């Protein structure tokens, strides 16, 4: 155990001292702050609009019962935070995974590590734990920023339930980021040229994080016109469902495309927990998880697979086979 901690500690200090990592962290925090500011301004605009409408209605002599006051759900403002964790969080995972292997490979220090009385999987586990700590630190700082800004901007106090939901989102964010960490580590171990490993990781990142969700998004018939196709057609929700019922195959392909990406699963679950879609607002964590357990399971499996493989690769005897 002592040895695992030694490796984990070194791993964490190495990563925290890396400039590229720090730049990415700053980017991420910057985007988190901006996106929350945007969301809160957006909400304040809605409040102003509402108050104006109420005034107009009252001046006309009518009551304000016919329009709804915009409801404030502070967690909803975190929608873009999830978006940025999807994109930049994954890149952070890639960079950490890459660094954790590249620092040993080019310098032949892997031989030194392996010739110590340490079990091979302990080295792998040490690396995973060290970087998990770093990722939790990143998420912790992000959480701190979020909490601070929300209090500062709107004086929004999060309820216990909301804090629990937020923590759950962050746990899944950790699982999500670690998927990319594990994937890149494996590739970096397996590939003769580190550069190719990094390249493939970024290609996978592009495809999973950006392209697949983008395809799903652009194929959505409702997204063909700014503001929504069905809205432009003046169609009610019930009618829309009925019409779309005739296009099951198309919708199936679209959905299957999205299902193949861990990002989409992570996004669906997080959005539900944050109540980005109003139907989930006010629901308990249990009810949401009951509805979205499928997505949670996928994120968890995506998380486990590469890390488990990494430990297995470390344990097997072929780490150096590329050398000759």
């Amino acid at each position, binding site marked *: 155990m002592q040895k695992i901690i030694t490796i984990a500690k070194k791993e964490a200090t190495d990563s925290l001292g890396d400039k590229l990592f720090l730049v990415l962290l700053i980017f991420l925090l910057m985007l988190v702050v901006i996106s929350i500011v945007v969301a809160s301004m957006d909400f304040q605009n809605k409040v102003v609009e509402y108050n104006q409408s109420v005034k107009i209605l009252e001046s006309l002599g009518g009551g304000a019962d016919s329009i709804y006051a915009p409801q404030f759900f502070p967690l909803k403002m975190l929608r873009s935070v999830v978006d940025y964790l999807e994109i930049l969080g994954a890149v952070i995972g890639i960079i950490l995974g890459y660094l954790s292997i590249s620092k040993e490979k080019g310098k032949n220090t892997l031989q030194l590590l392996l010739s110590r009385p340490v079990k091979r999987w302990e080295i792998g586990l040490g690396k995973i734990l060290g970087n998990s700590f770093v990722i939790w630190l990143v998420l912790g700082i992000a959480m701190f920023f979020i909490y601070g800004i929300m209090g500062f901007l709107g004086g929004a106090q999060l309820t216990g339930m909301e804090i629990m939901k937020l923590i759950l989102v962050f746990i899944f964010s950790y699982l999500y980021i670690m998927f990319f960490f594990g994937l890149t580590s494996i590739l970096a171990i397996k590939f003769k040229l580190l550069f190719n490993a990094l390249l493939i990781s*970024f290609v996978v990142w592009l495809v999973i994080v950006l392209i697949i969700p983008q395809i799903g998004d652009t194929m959505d*018939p409702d997204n063909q016109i700014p503001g929504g196709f069905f809205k432009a057609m003046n169609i009610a929700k019930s009618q829309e469902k009925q019409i779309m019922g005739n296009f099951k195959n198309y919708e199936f392909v679209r959905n299957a495309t999205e299902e193949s990406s861990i990002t989409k699963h992570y996004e669906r679950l997080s959005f539900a927990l944050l109540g980005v879609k109003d139907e989930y607002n006010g629901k308990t964590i249990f009810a949401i998880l009951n509805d979205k357990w499928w997505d949670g399971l996928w994120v968890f499996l995506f998380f486990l697979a590469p890390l488990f493989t990494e430990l297995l690769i470390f344990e097997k005897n072929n780490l150096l086979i590329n050398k000759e």
Partner: protein
Amino acid sequence: MKLLTVKTIAGGEFKTLVRQKTFVLLLTIFLFMAAFSAFIGWSTKNTVTKIYVATVRELISSGTKKMPVNPFLSAPPLSILKNMPTYVFLIGSLLAIIIGYSSFVRERKAGVIKIIFSRQISRVEFLLGKITGIFLVLSAIVGLSFVLSFFSVVIISGQMLVFSEMFKLLMFYLVSFLYLIIFAMLGLFFAIFAKSESLALLAPMIIWIFISFVMPQLTSALDPNSLLNPTSIQSIMPQSVFFTSTRFLLEPFSVSENYKTISQSFLQGDIKEYPIFSLIVYLFFTMSIPFLVIKKFNVCEVEIE
């Protein structure tokens, strides 16, 4: 300056890049992108038209008299390619970084750089040759993608493109070419400048992230998913003093946003803005920085892993 040496380097560069597996891979990816965007455009258009017909039927049966128009009816034929700018902006630029990067790192790694620089060639000539080679490769890739796009549009729409549409498609690929050059030059710059191989790749990546995601967030305040969806570019952005001012100050320099706007103007024909300023500034900047660092490049410190 000897034109012959520049030509030798450029020719060598073109040859090695084309012979490498990387080139075949990049070309395949590009052609796939072009074909794929045409396919998505076609299948979406097809389905939405059917949905439109179904909707109209529904509206008639419920007694509505005023029928909305099919949104695809007025769309220009090139609009089925509307995903292509997103792919160039995401995948293409990343690939361009790699082309620029590998063109110099290869020499550094093989240690050939010492041999080259000990010949009768100035460093500027060497760099000019490299850049020419990169231009050739990128234009080959973009050229072939243009041909493929052209034929897919003709086949899908079932009619020959009129001259003005063909010109627009050509202009779109020209702008894309310039956009790619920017990133290839960034890759080249860091390959010369950075001390280690991984930094040479990761540094331009970080800039790529900044240009592609951070800047647009500052200027448009759109959430990142909308940034990638070609239709939502025109959607309404939140109004506030902060963002009106950041937009005013930064938008002329947000080259990724400007590239998308120009592309949409050519392909979808509904924005009609050509903010070419940032593209020129970035081109000028990224093409000159390799020349600034090549002179200071320390040949004795080339050993990189």
